[in-house]
């Protein structure tokens, strides 16, 4: 079994109002030992609709979705905490929704690792006349 640091404070929320939790999102009340969330999105905007299927999994083919940022502390940090008031009190929380591997927690978390990759591609049939020069590729 895991143990949450006993020095973590108690979170107390009187009223929690959320409309929706969609697309692999989590709404959690209570302590969590570990959260690992990842979301990969590819948004393709096409001038002309093209419903042909991809030959291979686009997430497998593009190196973009294989990138893993590495986080390493510059030096080890020892944190000493003193809780004069052992509770975090929030009267009211109001928000619309949680989406795309988002996580909302009321409680303590030992470790959370979140990763999001979003890529947008705009596809035109011809050079758009209205686009600024920056958007044009000479080839």
């Amino acid at each position, binding site marked *: 079994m895991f143990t949450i640091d006993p020095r973590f404070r108690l*979170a107390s929320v009187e009223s929690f109002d959320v409309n929706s939790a969609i697309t692999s999102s989590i709404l959690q009340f209570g302590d969590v030992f570990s959260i690992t969330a990842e979301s990969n999105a590819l948004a393709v905007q096409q001038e002309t609709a093209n419903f042909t299927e991809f030959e291979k999994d*686009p997430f497998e083919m593009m190196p973009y979705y294989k990138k893993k940022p590495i986080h390493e502390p510059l030096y080890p940090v020892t944190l000493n905490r003193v809780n004069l008031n052992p509770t975090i009190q929030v009267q009211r929380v109001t928000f619309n929704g949680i989406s795309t591997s988002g996580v909302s927690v009321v409680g303590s978390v030992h470790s959370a690792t979140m990763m999001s990759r979003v890529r947008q591609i*705009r596809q*035109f049939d011809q050079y758009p006349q209205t686009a600024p020069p920056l958007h044009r590729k000479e080839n």
Partner: protein
Amino acid sequence: MNLNVTNCNLQVDEIKFAAVSSSSLFLIGDAHNITLSSIFDTPPESLIIGPFVPLSIS
């Protein structure tokens, strides 16, 4: 490095926002370790003209 933290009172009346999205974390409480990464690629770099989506370009 030693970091000494004294948590006095933390009392909030109201938290209001639109949404938690794209692997974001909204936390009311304490945490030991949080690692967040985000890669976002948007036009003009992603603007492509032609009949195919170049899925092999990084």
